[in-house]
């Protein structure tokens, strides 16, 4: 059988399995990868070419740091402190939680961020007898927008950074301003859309204040020494990310250094910490790289790139196409397989276009596209899943009405900024 047809069939089969969620996405990706290896569509000796170790080690390092820091109570501390700072005002709660979610998401993974902040947000809205939906939606959008801002904020950015050799500062210079403007846009939109639901009596504000003041954020710190060590290591890692290009070290090395430093310094049991690494996510990435590698190996990606070039003639057209295609696709399919597929495509388009703005276009579309639908990003699924467990209903349509507008607004703003920067007015 023609290896090209096998590669396309396995790719589509894997995508279908991932989308159906009938089996775990990691199993789907591993199954696809092993089929391609068994049928020799991807020769074993070529596996290292497709397996992006930079992405896998960066994710592993950050998972170790986050899981060790989590034990200290650092994130509960942040959540309680944020709630107290809002002083019972619904608008301040919306603003502060959005800002903190975006900030934490820009350095840590979105799922961990929303898992840790949502319980506090629900508790606060419950105390104020407010509809939690606007707050939960704002948290989702902020998490996806915050993740866009940095190299380590969202897996698509890690993959793009690794494939294109983009540095932490490149992302900071190009994507952080867009993320900041998008965060403001999302906040204003949520406020205008739900402003009637954001009003409470002064008695309720006072009641919340009294209750929150009885909570001591310092009590959230389960292990003060580990807390201090975790904060120190996270700061060292962030500083190293800022200068990794000058030191000529890969971001993955920074993350692994931070992880080993924290393990060494904290004396936490490595068995316990390694057990908490999200192995399914890492195997999902590994499998996907090989499945997409099958398309590269058989020349499918190159043919698609040539076809695109037949219709797209300028950098500006390519910028718009990549952004909106990846945004709408990300709203429907997981942005990780989408990015894994788009990366070799953009590389293949490199012979005809300036790829630099195209990488940013992909990052913009892949990260912000997730805001479009309820199943567009992992953070959406986690927050809606938590809401379901707490008997709060957010239907697919409810989400779509707000999410699609936010997605279009934020992506359009991002494209506008990239256009001004790379194409010119």
């Amino acid at each position: 059988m023609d290896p090209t047809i096998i590669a396309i069939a396995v790719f589509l089969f894997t995508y279908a399995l991932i989308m159906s969620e009938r089996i775990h996405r990691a199993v789907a990706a591993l199954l696809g990868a092993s089929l391609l290896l068994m049928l020799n569509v991807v020769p074993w000796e070529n596996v290292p070419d497709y397996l992006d170790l930079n992405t896998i080690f960066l994710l592993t390092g950050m998972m170790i740091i986050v899981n060790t820091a989590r034990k200290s109570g650092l994130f509960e501390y942040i959540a309680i402190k944020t709630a107290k700072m809002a002083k019972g005002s619904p608008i301040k709660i919306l603003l502060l939680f959005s800002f903190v979610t975006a900030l934490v998401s820009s350095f840590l993974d979105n799922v961990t961020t929303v898992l840790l902040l949502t319980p506090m947000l629900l508790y606060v809205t419950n105390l104020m007898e407010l509809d939690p939906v606007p707050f939960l939606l704002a948290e989702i959008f902020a998490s996806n927008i915050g993740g866009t801002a940095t190299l380590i904020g969202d897996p698509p950015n890690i993959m793009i950074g690794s494939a294109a050799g983009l540095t932490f500062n490149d992302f900071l210079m190009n994507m952080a301003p867009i993320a900041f403007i998008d965060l403001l846009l999302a906040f204003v939109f949520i406020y205008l859309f739900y402003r009637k639901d954001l009003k409470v009596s002064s008695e309720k504000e006072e009641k919340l204040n009294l209750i929150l003041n009885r909570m001591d954020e310092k009590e959230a710190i389960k292990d003060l020494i580990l807390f201090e060590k975790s904060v120190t290591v996270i700061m060292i890692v962030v500083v190293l990310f800022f200068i990794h290009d000058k030191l000529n070290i890969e971001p993955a090395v920074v993350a692994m250094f931070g992880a080993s430093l924290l393990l060494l310094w904290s004396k936490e049991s490595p068995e316990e910490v390694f057990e908490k690494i999200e192995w399914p996510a890492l195997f999902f990435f590994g499998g996907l790289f090989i499945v997409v590698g099958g398309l590269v190996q058989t020349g499918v990606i190159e043919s698609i790139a040539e076809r695109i070039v037949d219709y797209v003639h300028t950098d500006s057209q390519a910028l718009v196409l990549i952004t909106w295609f990846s945004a709408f696709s990300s709203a429907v399919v997981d942005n990780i397989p989408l990015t894994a597929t788009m990366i070799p495509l953009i590389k293949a388009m490199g012979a005809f276009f300036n790829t630099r703005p195209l990488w940013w276009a992909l990052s913009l579309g892949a990260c912000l596209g997730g805001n479009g639908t309820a199943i567009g990003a992992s953070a959406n699924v986690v927050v809606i899943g938590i809401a379901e467990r707490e008997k709060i209903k957010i239907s697919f349509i409810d989400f779509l009405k707000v999410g699609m507008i936010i997605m279009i607004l934020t992506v359009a703003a991002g494209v506008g900024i990239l256009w001004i920067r790379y194409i010119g007015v």
Partner: protein
Amino acid sequence: MSIFSTIINRRFKHIAGNRYEKILKSYKEFFLTEEEISLPVIKSILMPIDRSVKTVPEEIYDALSACEDAEVTVVYIMSEDACALIRQTLGEEASKEFRLKEEEIGRELLEKIVLSLENSGLKVRTRMFLGNKSEDVIKLSKERDLLVISRIYGSEITKTTSISPIVMKIVQHVNIPVMVY
């Protein structure tokens, strides 16, 4: 369950596993229960004192000043058992002398505390009587909304506990909120 809920739950399980339950468990220590959230209405406060209580910290006056329109009953209880013991061992005269001395200390202390409470905008009533330091406080607290008590009320604190045995007994038997200073 709708198709959407099924998909969300399946994906949630794949992405988050059982992490949410673990996080929720760690938050439970901080989230107050419904019972804890309901703030009690404080209209009457009982504040027992005795010769062990030399001063009341300023923070207590500040905290009590938040209970608008509340009436504070400051009671100075002289130990009936101590008087009886002195009477039996040293005679009637010594017992009388002890009681007079106690009353003098009580009056001085009551005056000082009443002044501070009134300056905090609270209505104050005072009582001084011979009685049982723990039983009478437990009895009086039944008609009050809050008990404010010094940790050294009744006797000195021991090496093993940070509150006196009398206060320990009181806090174990009253059914109203207690502020121990």
